[in-house]
């Protein structure tokens, strides 16, 4: 029995259907990300769970309790906002204590819990400060402590990192994940940043125009995208047009060579299909065991540290490939002619 269940959740604003038949089961202690482009309905789903929007239809069950009709302040759900939303008139300690005070927790217990929370977020000294005296990253950590202090059943985070600069963003996301795992709190995290979602989630829900396109672990989403949208939204892809030779055996023709795909094809012999390959599945030069070799010309080289990303022009199309950096082997310079090896076993089939 899962801890948080969304069943056939729908939301329309007027005639605008923003969330369509959204289903999700979240286990206790799981970290789920809702990933998708801006405007696809992520915030709306989160706000329905929090109780700030009433679903047009469908149900929300938390820990066996139907909460769909419950007011937001009766749901015991912690929430973190993009704009921090600390109470400007209260000190850090008072902010963190707010939920406990509302609950009627006694003063001594409250103070102990506030101290515990401030220690958890690594700001034990700042209880007496006001929000405007803190940096953005510190404010967001206080917001996390405030959300966690009353021991909510579920923690909801709506793009909590997008207002922060890059360095703080990475360190705070790691801290959020650590705290989440320590406390074992069921968490739903909204982001439009695929790298962010990949790096901290147990599972990701990729959303497109109000629909959950695919739900899976970061590994599954990245390596086995089930729709063209997911494949294109998550990571970079090279697509190639192929002709089906033997659908049952998964054999297709690309140029002059036959490639064997990882699975059988659901298409007629001689029909055209697209296959996709991640940049890291391509090999620079001739690689033993790779069925196909294409040649092209280097357009540009991005040295990214451990990885070098090359863009090559192959018959008018841009192909992106990643190679590992090697200290004894400088990357090719733009303009150089190169050969690229491909293998059918790495291909992602794009259907739908």
């Amino acid at each position, binding site marked *: 029995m899962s801890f948080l269940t969304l069943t056939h959740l729908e939301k329309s604003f007027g005639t605008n259907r923003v969330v369509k038949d959204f289903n999700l089961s979240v286990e206790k202690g799981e970290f789920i990300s809702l990933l998708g482009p801006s405007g696809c309905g992520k915030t709306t789903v989160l706000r329905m769970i*929090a*109780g*700030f929007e009433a679903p047009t239809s469908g149900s929300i069950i938390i820990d066996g309790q139907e909460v769909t009709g419950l*007011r*937001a*302040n*009766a*749901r*015991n*759900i*912690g*929430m973190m*906002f993009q*704009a921090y*939303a*600390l*109470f*400007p*008139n*209260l000190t850090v300690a008072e902010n963190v204590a*707010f*939920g406990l005070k*509302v*609950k009627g927790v006694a003063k001594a217990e409250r103070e102990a819990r506030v101290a515990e929370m401030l220690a958890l977020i690594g700001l034990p000294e700042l209880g007496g400060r*006001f*929000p*405007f*005296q803190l940096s953005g990253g510190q404010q967001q950590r206080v*917001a996390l402590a*405030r*959300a966690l202090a*009353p021991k909510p059943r579920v923690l*909801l985070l709506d793009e909590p990192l997008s207002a922060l600069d890059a360095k703080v963003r990475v360190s705070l996301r790691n801290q959020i994940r650590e705290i989440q795992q320590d406390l074992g709190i069921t968490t739903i995290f909204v982001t439009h940043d695929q790298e962010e979602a990949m790096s901290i989630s147990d599972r990701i829900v990729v959303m497109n125009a109000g629909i959950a396109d695919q739900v899976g672990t970061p590994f599954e989403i990245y390596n086995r995208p089930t729709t063209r949208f997911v494949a294109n939204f998550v990571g970079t892809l090279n697509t190639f047009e192929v002709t089906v030779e033997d659908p049952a055996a998964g054999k297709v023709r690309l140029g002059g060579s036959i490639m064997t795909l990882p699975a059988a094809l659901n298409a007629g012999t001689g029909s055209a299909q697209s296959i996709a390959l991640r940049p890291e599945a391509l090999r620079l030069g001739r690689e033993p065991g790779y069925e196909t070799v294409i040649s092209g010309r280097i357009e540009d080289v991005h040295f990214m540290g451990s990885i070098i990303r090359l863009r090559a022009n192959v018959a008018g199309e841009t192909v992106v490939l990643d190679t590992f950096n090697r200290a004894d082997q400088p990357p090719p310079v733009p303009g150089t002619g190169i050969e690229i090896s491909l293998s059918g076993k790495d291909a992602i089939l794009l259907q739908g």
Partner: protein
Amino acid sequence: MTRIIAWGVFLLGCLYFLLPLVGMTEFSLRMRRGEYSFDAYRVVFGDPRFWDTFSYSLILSGATILVGVFLVVPTAYWVRLKLPQARPFVEFVTLLPLVIPAIVIVFGYIRLYNTSSFLPLTGSALGTDILLTMGYTTLALPYMYRSVDTGLRTIDVATLTEAAQSLGAGWITILGRIILPNVMIAVLSGAFLTLAIVMGEFTMAALLNRPAFGPYMQLIGANRAYEPPALAVIAFALTWGCMGLMQLVARLAKHERAKA
């Protein structure tokens, strides 16, 4: 060149405001022939009616401020949060007291709440005071609403409300612990304007026949020479005292420093 003109205009402005004030103060000190004295002030402060009417109006302005705050803060908050499309309408309603003369309002009151009506408020002193407080609240509404609404603009009302709700807070907690403290400076400036209006108001108090400060000032002004300017100077001192107090409170409210 433009600098000199600018300074010239500034000085002219200063003179425009200061000269009458200086003249008035000077005149108020001339009660004793041939020398300056505080005789006029002594007479004013020595008059028990001054103290009676002054404290009466002070108490009523306190009541007016309380009623105004309880009426305006939740209304302005609710309009911002849930009915933003109704804002022009609400603003229009709050501006009505500026176009409807007080005399019309008070005659309306007398018609509605006279001793033979369903709610005979004018039948007792307390009832009339309540009526007068409501009238003052109406007069002060444009200023109170504007101040509070401007104060609400400086905070993210919707997000703060949702943050408080997710922490379990109900409407009263949200209004009392989050919204009101964050618009306190705005409420204070509204309160100060209310005080100024109530202390000087004549029409309503006179027609409802209550011993307020406005009718007293009018009475003195019509019958005496040196005391009215002395009263005016006292009123100015009071006004500036309030302003200073507001500044002080703003400075003491630590979290407000961020906005300054």
